[in-house]
């Protein structure tokens, strides 16, 4: 009987195990193997040891793309976290029927194709021909080099990212707010707590698991940012907005240097793993799971 159970279990698990092996484990192992090779996909693998990993620390462009990624990710995570929460808090104050309308409006950009809306935003941000600077000029102000200046370009990408993707954080917060027991707010009201005090002592602590989830996901997503710089700036000006993922793609598919691209991918994996572990450890100090 036991033997039968084991066989049945293996049979049931087989499809999932095979899927994982083919689409996850084998590619991961392959990535490590390719990272130790000189490989252009048209010629056979040529093992070169750790040269690609050494290059990670010596090639200026790799290091600068990491720096760019961290700057952009930091900005995007902060903005998404705060704006998403503010939107959820505002929507929650409306009548239920109106809430569903606002939910749809706020989430709409998330379901649009990034490429098409990015083209529209490129026109909006265009320094000389864009509508944003047109209005600034009407107000007597000067053109802002939204996509041309290495400093302004971060803000422009962040604005686009918030407009396009904040709907995700907003929805998580809205769901999180729904799960906070109404009795807590009633008790606070009876005790004479004001709205700021209620938010600080009830909403925020009760929402910490959601905030943690949102921040963790945003950190992972933002560190792998690709779409926004690819479509808006092409990584420019120069390398100013070239993220690690965009650089990795170019090394792989423009230079056909799959060995080095794999080494970058592995380095990104470890950076993300370290980030995640640190965040999970730190979360013990500020995330409240007790809802009793």
């Amino acid at each position, binding site marked *: 009987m036991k033997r039968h159970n084991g066989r049945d279990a293996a049979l049931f698990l087989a499809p999932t195990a095979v899927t994982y092996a083919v689409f996850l484990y084998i590619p991961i192992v392959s990535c490590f193997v390719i990272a130790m090779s000189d490989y252009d996909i048209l010629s056979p693998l040529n093992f070169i040891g750790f040269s690609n990993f050494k290059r990670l620390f010596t090639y200026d462009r790799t290091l600068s793309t990491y720096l760019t990624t961290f700057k952009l990710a930091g900005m995007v995570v902060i903005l998404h976290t705060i704006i998403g929460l503010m939107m959820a808090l505002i929507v929650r104050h409306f009548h239920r029927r109106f809430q569903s309308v606002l939910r749809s409006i706020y989430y709409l950009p998330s379901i649009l194709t990034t490429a098409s809306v990015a083209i529209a935003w490129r026109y909006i941000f*265009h320094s000389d021909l864009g509508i944003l600077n047109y209005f600034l000029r009407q107000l007597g102000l000067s053109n802002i080099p939204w996509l041309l200046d290495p400093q302004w370009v971060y803000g422009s990408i962040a604005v686009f990212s918030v407009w396009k993707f904040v709907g995700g954080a907003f929805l998580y917060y809205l769901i999180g707010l729904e799960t906070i027991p109404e009795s807590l707010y009633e008790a606070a009201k009876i005790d004479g707590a004001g709205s700021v005090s209620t938010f600080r002592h009830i909403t925020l602590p009760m929402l910490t698991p959601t905030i943690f989830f949102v921040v963790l996901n945003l950190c992972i997503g933002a560190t792998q940012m690709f779409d926004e710089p690819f479509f808006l700036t092409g990584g420019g000006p120069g390398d100013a907005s070239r993220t690690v993922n965009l650089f990795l793609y170019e090394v792989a598919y423009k230079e056909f240097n799959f060995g080095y691209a794999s080494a970058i991918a592995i380095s990104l994996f470890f950076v993300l793993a370290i980030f995640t572990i640190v965040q999970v450890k730190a979360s013990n100090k500020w995330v409240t799971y007790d809802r009793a």
Partner: protein
Amino acid sequence: MKRLFIATAFAAAAVFGFANGQDEASTDSGVFGGDDVTLRFVMDGTVEQQAWMDELLADFNAEYPNIGVEVIWTPVGAEGWGGYFTKIKTMIASGQSPDLAMVASEGFQLLHEGKLAVPLNDYVEAHPELVDEYEDIHTKLQNACIIDGNLYGFAWNWNNVVTHINLDMLEAANLPFPSANWNKEEFLRYAQAMTIEKDGKKQYGTFIPNYNFMITGWLYNFGASVLNDEMSAAALETPEMQECMQFMHDLIYKYGVSPAPIPGDNFISMMTNRQVAMTFGGRWPVPAFVNADLNFDIQYVPSFNTNQVVYGTSMFPVMTASKHPEEAFIFSAWLSGRRSQEVYLSSFSIPTRLSVMDKVLPANPPENAQLFKTSADSARVVQAPAQFPEVEAAFMRAFNTIMSDPNADISGILSASNSDINEILSR
């Protein structure tokens, strides 16, 4: 020796068979065997062009019922030819190699050095009757398809870089149409005269080119180029290159006659939206200009230091990984014929056949369209080493850095890019 062989082969072929062309070939559709095969063919094109290709394929299948063709439409898109070749290489690497593909000049060295395409010399020698009037193809354009004596295909379409001028804006500025040998000072005067601001909206006199091919059109006229003549080293530190970049930069920031380019900017829509008065390109923007009722004409790129037109051509090479190289050669030769050019290239791009150019150019706008043909005689092919995608990316990174910064250290940026490109070429 190889060159001699090719020359002899073509001379013989021209005498014995080329002129007879496809009619003769059509009587022997099973010339290389006769089994039914389906070729995988990679082609760039729009929806409208796909309809033209359907028409051609129907004709081809009537002549060669045993050769089917599956067209894999692969738009060149925003990443340019570099991105297009990347897609073809990926197909080859994945074991899904096309049998043949449309490839532009930017990829010829890549095909040759990577041994990705089959030299067609033997096929042509064995079956010259399959090639439709070889001597009708412009010699200079066809020569680009022969590398180290290896013939990889027949020049099918080509493009150069000329100046597109909005005639309404020209008239509004009371300027005559520029002469063929207009120079830097005249160009600047024209750009300044056509730059106006009305109701907070600025109309720019020009838009500096922002794609590698068009920039090359300017570089050649400054006597500069990204690489040396042998394409063995970068040449970004020459005074001519510095002068060209400085002039472009000045057009944006000193004279204010051109918007600062952002990667991906579409000069065609800027022209059709009447935001700029002059842009630079070949014949490919013409359909969009006509559809937008733009009153325009073309003139040479100004002779900044010299007058050297850039060109890029395309052909249909047979891939080394093809399982049906003979049939692919038949289709490549057929598609390079006059009929194909008349159907596909009447309004889009420039045909390479002298007879087709003479037929379609005068029948279509702009008025000065014959310039598309005459410029071929003195044109110089766009530089494209085997590492073209990387070299292009490195140069464009430097170009965009310069053009986005009002205070750019032009010589410093060019010098750094020069080192980058030399490093790429040395791999």
